């Protein structure tokens, strides 16, 4: 049995004992509710039937086996689960899968592949923008979106002139990446990778 399978079996046995207890307390157990979902993930149409409680993150990882997107805190605090929805970065752990009917999702797997890297992926490798790598897919998805947000003129907390156009300065990129935590502390190399890409695009 794989490690993933073992963890899954463990969780299932916990659930089996936990459910009757809470059911006895409230009198009537609420049955899980299933819903159909059709969306596009990394350019491919996918249809799923999911428990309404399934987050976008869990649908990607558990239902579609796209395990590049990582679960860190599962509460929107760490950014490891960052993906792009119709080009906009969000925390996939704080969004229900059923709320993404018809959406176009891009995960780290869709951004680029080992033989066809996205410029940001290549820059992270070149500048050593990671150590353990766990936060990296979220960092890269966020970094790609940050450069887009700056280009679109969206202001940040450190933008000096609200009516001017923000630039891809160190301060701007650091502030805008504050929703992605790196426990290894690769921040300065992440910044170099982003600067590299920003300069090439500009």
């Amino acid at each position: 049995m794989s490690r993933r399978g073992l963890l899954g079996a463990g969780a299932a046995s916990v659930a089996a004992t936990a459910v009757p207890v809470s059911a006895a307390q409230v009198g009537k157990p609420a049955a899980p509710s299933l819903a159909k979902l059709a969306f596009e993930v990394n350019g491919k149409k996918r249809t799923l039937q999911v428990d309404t409680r399934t987050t976008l993150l869990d649908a990607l990882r558990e239902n579609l086996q796209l395990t590049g997107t990582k679960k860190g805190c599962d509460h929107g605090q760490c950014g490891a689960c960052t993906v792009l929805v119709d080009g906009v970065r969000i925390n996939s752990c704080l969004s229900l899968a059923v709320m993404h009917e018809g959406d176009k999702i891009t995960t780290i797997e869709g951004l680029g592949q080992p033989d066809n890297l996205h410029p940001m992926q290549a820059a992270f490798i070149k500048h050593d923008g990671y150590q353990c790598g766990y936060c990296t897919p979220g960092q890269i998805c966020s970094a790609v979106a940050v450069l887009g947000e700056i280009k679109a003129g969206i202001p940040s907390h450190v933008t000096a002139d609200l009516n001017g156009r923000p630039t891809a300065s160190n301060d701007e990129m650091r502030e805008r990446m504050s929703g992605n935590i790196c426990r290894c502390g690769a921040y300065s190399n992440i910044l170099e990778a982003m600067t590299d890409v920003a300069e090439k695009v500009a």
Partner: protein
Amino acid sequence: MKPFTYQRVSTPAEAAAAAARMANSKFIAGGTNLLDLMKLQIEAPAHLIDVNALKLDKIEDMPDGGLRIGALVTNTNLAADTRVRRDYGVLSRAIVAGASGQLRNKATTAGNLLQRTRCPYFYDTNQPCNKRQPGTGCSAIGGYSRQLGVIGTSDSCIATYPGDMAVAMRVLDATVHTVKPDGLTRTIPIADFHRLPGDTPQADTVLQTGELITAVTLPKPIGGTHVYQKVRDRASYAFALVSVAAVVQSDGSGRIAVGGIAPKPWRNEAAEADLPRGAKAVTTKLLADARPTEDNAFKVSLVERTLAAALAEAKG
């Protein structure tokens, strides 16, 4: 998360009617606060009503020169709107001072107004909390209260309203527009929208069951220099210890609202009249009724200093 059924609606009336029909239901828009709370079983709705298709995602000019912000306009889009940046800078500044880029992309105007407190005891389901479980007691009083309220609190609850956006909306005299399950609409001045805890801290706002926010309107621009100063434990992505939204006119008069210190954005028009006399005079009046704890007594002087910084920034 507890199991729940899920429904999409396409008109505000349909949404309000669905809420009236289904007991223990909740509206969901961005979901960034609600889903977090559902994972912790602090919120456990039996039914979710997805309001994202209501087409309330536009910012429109109003005949009186003001602005109508749809309930579903995201924080990112509101802060980036050219009219908001030009005429209501304090609102843009407040929004980008909160949360992270990912959260602002999802969080909506209405949802942000309704976000719940970040009191650590509200979040810890093993602890008594009158807001989460009415009648169980307040663990924060006598507990760890550094982050919590110094004014407007009660013997039942000392939690704060945690957001930034509403503090700017308070200074701008915004109005919240809603529709009730019976189809009637009403307008609520932002000053009356969040309520003080008294002995019913479980109700954060004056909204009734099933009442849906459809828009927030801003009166016509008032000019002046717009400033939002926020003091927090990290430079980014943290809730305020104290924040000050200020609109200061060239003669030194103006308006201020303070965040991070009370169950609602805190503004006192009489205290504000002392703005030309400086931060100390204003703060003395504004916080005359403050009842800080030992842990958060520092917030009283921090308000004065943050206000002084805001006024200095406004002067340029």
